[in-house]
């Protein structure tokens, strides 16, 4: 058999791929080990399934809930609330950040308010939210918005203000007005920040939605968790929690993919360096 020869660079690439594979295997292995240990200790009675449930019971509960049909209605309600809250926060927060960028004075006036609002535990506003908009979907969406919007304003504003000063100077020397500077230099420069904020807000929007559902809901995954807790159905609580993990992961994945697509949109053009 002919021995395959490899160049040092091929060996280097092989090493990189090997390391990546090992890390992936560790990530999957750790999850499998944890689930396996959980199942084993539940089966032999080390863990009390009344308190901790077990992976097999979660699967059974999930199948039962899915067969019932109502589960996907709850998933849909929570997903819709979360996506609406996320969208309003991203859009509203970005618009506020742009307005604050446009006015130095307004930015300076708003600074301490943003700091205080960011530090405020939003759950404290729960009763007020119910008084303002009623105990319905609006209150849940508002809770999600409250949690995400200040982070959006602060982070997007930071991104806008971090625009390379020499680019702004160049445009000013060309006679550009403030809106032209915003459109041509500031917004494109801040786009990576906007995408990073979107990734952070995916998690925060879920926190806000579930918190809102704990407070006021009649449907949704948060409602199912509260219900499951009240009637001591840990299987239901665990199943809904796992479903939430999957949904949050999926939404984060979509946002991360959008970011990846943005960064690689000209990759084919950039692949060749000209010297």
């Amino acid at each position, binding site marked *: 058999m002919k021995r395959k020869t490899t160049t040092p660079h091929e060996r280097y690439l092989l090493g990189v791929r090997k390391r990546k594979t090992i890390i992936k295997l560790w990530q999957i292995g750790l999850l499998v080990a944890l689930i396996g240990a959980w199942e084993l200790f539940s089966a032999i009675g080390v863990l009390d399934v009344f308190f901790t449930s077990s992976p097999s019971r979660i699967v059974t509960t999930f199948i039962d809930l899915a067969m019932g049909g109502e589960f996907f209605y709850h998933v849909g309600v929570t997903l819709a609330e979360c996506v609406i809250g996320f969208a309003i926060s991203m859009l509203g927060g970005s618009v506020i950040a742009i307005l604050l960028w446009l006015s130095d004075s307004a930015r300076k006036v708003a600074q301490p308010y943003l700091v205080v609002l960011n530090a405020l535990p939003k759950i404290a506003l729960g009763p007020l939210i119910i008084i303002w908009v009623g105990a319905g979907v609006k209150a849940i969406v508002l809770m999600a918005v409250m949690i995400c919007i200040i982070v959006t304003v602060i982070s997007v504003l930071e991104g806008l203000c971090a625009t*390379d000063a*020499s*680019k702004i*100077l*160049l*445009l*000013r*020397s*060309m*006679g*550009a007005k403030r809106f*032209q500077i915003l459109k*041509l*230099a500031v917004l*494109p420069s801040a*786009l990576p920040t906007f995408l990073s904020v979107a990734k952070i807000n995916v998690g925060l929007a879920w926190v806000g939605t579930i918190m809102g559902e704990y407070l006021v809901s009649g449907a949704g995954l948060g409602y199912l968790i509260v219900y499951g807790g009240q009637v001591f159905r840990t299987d239901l609580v665990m199943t809904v929690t796992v479903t939430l993990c999957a949904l949050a992961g999926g939404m984060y994945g979509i946002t991360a993919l959008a970011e990846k697509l943005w960064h690689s949109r*000209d990759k084919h*053009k*950039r692949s*060749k*360096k*000209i*010297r």
Partner: protein
Amino acid sequence: MEMLSLKDVYLSYHTAEGETEALAGVTFGVEKGEFVALVGPSGCGKTTVLSAVCGLIPITSGSITLDGKAVSAPSGNVGYMLQRDTLFEWLTIEKNVWLGLKVRKMLTEENKRYAHSLLVKYGLGEFARSMPEQLSGGMRQRVALIRTLAFRPKVLLLDEPFSALDYQTRIDVGDSVTEIIKQEGVTALFVTHDVTEACALADKIVVLSARPAVVKRIFDAPRSSSPNERRTDGTANDLTDAIWKELKN
């Protein structure tokens, strides 16, 4: 005919710490099509002169006129080339070159063709659709120059545009940029801390004093010779010695 004229220009900055006088009666002129270098000690106010000519900062007294009209705010009649090339990394080379045209709402098909012709003329035509990061430092500086030329400014201001480049590239790019400026007949005011570079490239060298800046002396360079000829025949060295003496006084 003087394209750019500074007469007795005074300029002061105000900060919380107090008032800083940057320019104290700067007077000199730049003829149409002339390439003038501005040299002086570090921090003397060379870039301040450019900012004032551009209309980015108001002068305290005196006058700055561009093509006979007083400069009071950025008008778009000035092309500014900064220390770094400042290419917009998310735009193609072609779109970077259109930037000034876009700002001035002059992005017509005719102007696009003119901008493209400049790219072709100076060896960058095939890179029109490339991204800035694909180009070398020297090529990027040429693109930055073409971007300022594309909207046909009345005067070109260059603020140490080669200082970020390594020595060899700096000489190459300096020579080619000067050649482009001469070929296009553009009036240019060039700030540099490198006296040798000024002596090799410029038609006239204005020497500024330490802050607050005044014009100490204006030197004329032999206009017929190329930058390389000036470096090799000793002209640039003689001029450099004379300017160094002036700066030390």
